[in-house]
C-alpha cells in the first residue's frame, strides 16, 4: 500500500512538471500551429542562468532566469519563426530543430560540455517526510507550484481579455483577426507566457537535480511534446493532461519496474504512446468531435 502511495506521489510530481512544459508547447502550437522543438532551449537557458547566478540573492536569481527564457522566446520568434509563418509545416519543424541544434552548440561553447551546478533551490532537495513513504520538499513544491501555475493560467485564459483573445486565436486565428484581435500581440503573449513556464520548469528540475547539461531542456521537451500529442494538441486542457499523464506514467513505471527492467523504461513508455495514438489518434482526452489526426 505505501508503495502505491509513493508511486502516485512521485507520479504526480513529475506529471506536474511535464504538464507545465506541455502548456508552454501547446500555447505556441495553438496560436501559431508551430511545433517548437526549440522550446527545450528556453528551459536550458533558464537553468544555466540559475547556475551562473546561484550566489545571487534568490529572488533576483529566479527573476534573471525568467527574464532570460522570455527574452530568448521572443528573440527566436523575431529572428526565425516570424519569417516562417507561411512556410510548409515540415520546414518550420526542421527550422525549430536547426535552432535547437545551434543553441545547444552555443550552450556547449559558453558553458562547457561537463555541465554546471544550479544549486539555487538545493535546499528543497531534502527530506520532508520519511518513513513508510519518502517525500522530499521538492516533490511537494513541484505539486504545489504545478497546480498553482496551471490554475493561474486557466484563470488567465478564461477571465482576462488577452487570454480570451489567445483562445480565440488558437481556435481560428483568421476569424479572430477579423474581430480586431491583434495577431502580433497574441503571438507575443504566447511566447512570453511559454518563456515564463520554461523558467519555472527549469527551477523545478534544478531543484530536484542541480546538474545543468546542454541537453537538459531537449529531454523534457521531447516527453512533453509526446504528451501534448498523446493528450490532444488542439486544446490546451487536453494537451496539458497529456503532458501530465506522460510524466505520471514515466515516474510510476520508473518506481514500479524491477531493477532489471528499469533500463527499458522508455520502451514501455513509448509503447504505451504508440498504443494510445493507434486507439485514439485525435488524442487521449479529445472529445469525439475533434479528429485532429491529419495535421502537419
Amino acid at each position, binding site marked *: 500500500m505505501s508503495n502505491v502511495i509513493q508511486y502516485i506521489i512521485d507520479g504526480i510530481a513529475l506529471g506536474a512538471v511535464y504538464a507545465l512544459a506541455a502548456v508552454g508547447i501547446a500555447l505556441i502550437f495553438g496560436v501559431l500551429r508551430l511545433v517548437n522543438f526549440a522550446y527545450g532551449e528556453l528551459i536550458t537557458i533558464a537553468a544555466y542562468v540559475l547556475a551562473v547566478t546561484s550566489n545571487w540573492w534568490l529572488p533576483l536569481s529566479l527573476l534573471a532566469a525568467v527574464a532570460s527564457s522570455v527574452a530568448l522566446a521572443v528573440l527566436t520568434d523575431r529572428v526565425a519563426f516570424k519569417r516562417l509563418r507561411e512556410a510548409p509545416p515540415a520546414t518550420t519543424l526542421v527550422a525549430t530543430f536547426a535552432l535547437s541544434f545551434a543553441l545547444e552548440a552555443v550552450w556547449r561553447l559558453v558553458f562547457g560540455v561537463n555541465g554546471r551546478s544550479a544549486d539555487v533551490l538545493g535546499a528543497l532537495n531534502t527530506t520532508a517526510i520519511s518513513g513508510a513513504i519518502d517525500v522530499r520538499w521538492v516533490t511537494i513544491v513541484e505539486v504545489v507550484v504545478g497546480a498553482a501555475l496551471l490554475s493561474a493560467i486557466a484563470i488567465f485564459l478564461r477571465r482576462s*481579455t488577452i487570454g*480570451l*483573445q489567445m*483562445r*480565440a486565436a488558437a*481556435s*481560428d486565428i*483568421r*476569424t*479572430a*483577426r*477579423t*474581430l*480586431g*484581435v*491583434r*495577431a502580433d500581440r497574441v503571438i507575443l503573449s504566447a511566447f512570453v507566457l511559454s518563456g515564463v513556464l520554461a523558467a519555472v520548469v527549469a527551477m523545478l528540475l534544478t531543484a530536484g537535480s542541480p546538474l545543468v547539461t546542454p541537453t537538459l531542456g531537449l529531454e523534457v521537451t521531447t516527453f512533453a511534446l509526446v504528451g501534448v500529442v498523446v493528450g490532444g494538441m488542439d*486544446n490546451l486542457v487536453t494537451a496539458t493532461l497529456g503532458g501530465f499523464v506522460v510524466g505520471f506514467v514515466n515516474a510510476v513505471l520508473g518506481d514500479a519496474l524491477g531493477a532489471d527492467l528499469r533500463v527499458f523504461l522508455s520502451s514501455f513508455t513509448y509503447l504505451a504512446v504508440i498504443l494510445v495514438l493507434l486507439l485514439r489518434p485525435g488524442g487521449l482526452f479529445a472529445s469525439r*468531435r475533434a479528429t485532429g489526426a491529419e495535421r502537419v
Partner: protein
Amino acid sequence: MSEVATAVGLAVEGLEVAYGPVTVVRDLTLNVEPGEVVALVGANGAGKTTTLSAIMGLVPAKAGAIRLGDRSIAGFRPERVARAGIALVPEGRHLFPAMTVEENLKLGTIGRRSDDGLAEDRAWVEELFPAVRDFSGRRAGDLSGGQQQQVAIARALLARPDVLLLDEPSLGLAPKTVESVFEALTEIRRRGVTVLLVEQRAQLAIGFCDRTYVMAAGELRLTLTPKDAGDSARIVAAYFGS
C-alpha cells in the same frame, strides 16, 4: 436607443485579386453610399467571398483602391480593418465552437473603437436576436445553424461597425429563419449601418436592397434596383442558368 452618428460609406475601385496565378476578381468597382444596403449576387465561384475577404484584408489585393468613408484601407491587416470600422459575418459563420455564446460576443467587442454605449448595443442585439440572450452560457458549437447565424451577426454588430459585410447569412436556413434575418437587416439599416450583403437568393436581395450588383467570373455584370425586381428576376435567373 442611442442615435447613430453620421453613416459612413464603402467604395471599392478597380479591385483585382488572385490566388497564386489565378485571377478570380478583376477590375471590380462598387460603391455603397452611407447607410445603404447593397447586395452582391452571383453564381458559385463568381468571386463574392473573395471580394469581401479582400475588403477585410484577409487576402491581398493585387490592385485597386478600397475606401471606408474618405479613408483608404487597402493593404490594412484584418485586425486594422476591423478596428477601422468594418465587421464581417463570414460564410459559414465561424463562431468559436468550443467557447460559450457569451465569450463569442465578448470577442465581438474587441474591435470597438470605444466602450461607450456597449450596454445599449448589447440590449439592442438581444432584442434583435433573442437566441443571444437565451443561450448565452451554451457552447456556440452546440447551437442550431439558425441560432449560430444570429450569434454571428450579433457578434459583428457588437463591434459597432460603420460597415457590415454579410456573406450569405441565409445559407442553409429555413424560410422562417431567413425572414427573421432580413427583419434584423431592416433594423440594422434603420440604425444607419452601411451593409454590403452577399446573397444567393437574388429575388430576395433585389427586392430588399437599395442596389444589387450581379457578379460573374470575377467581374461586375449588372446593377439592379428594386424597380427591376419583377423583371430582373428573369434576367438574373438567366444569369444563373436556372
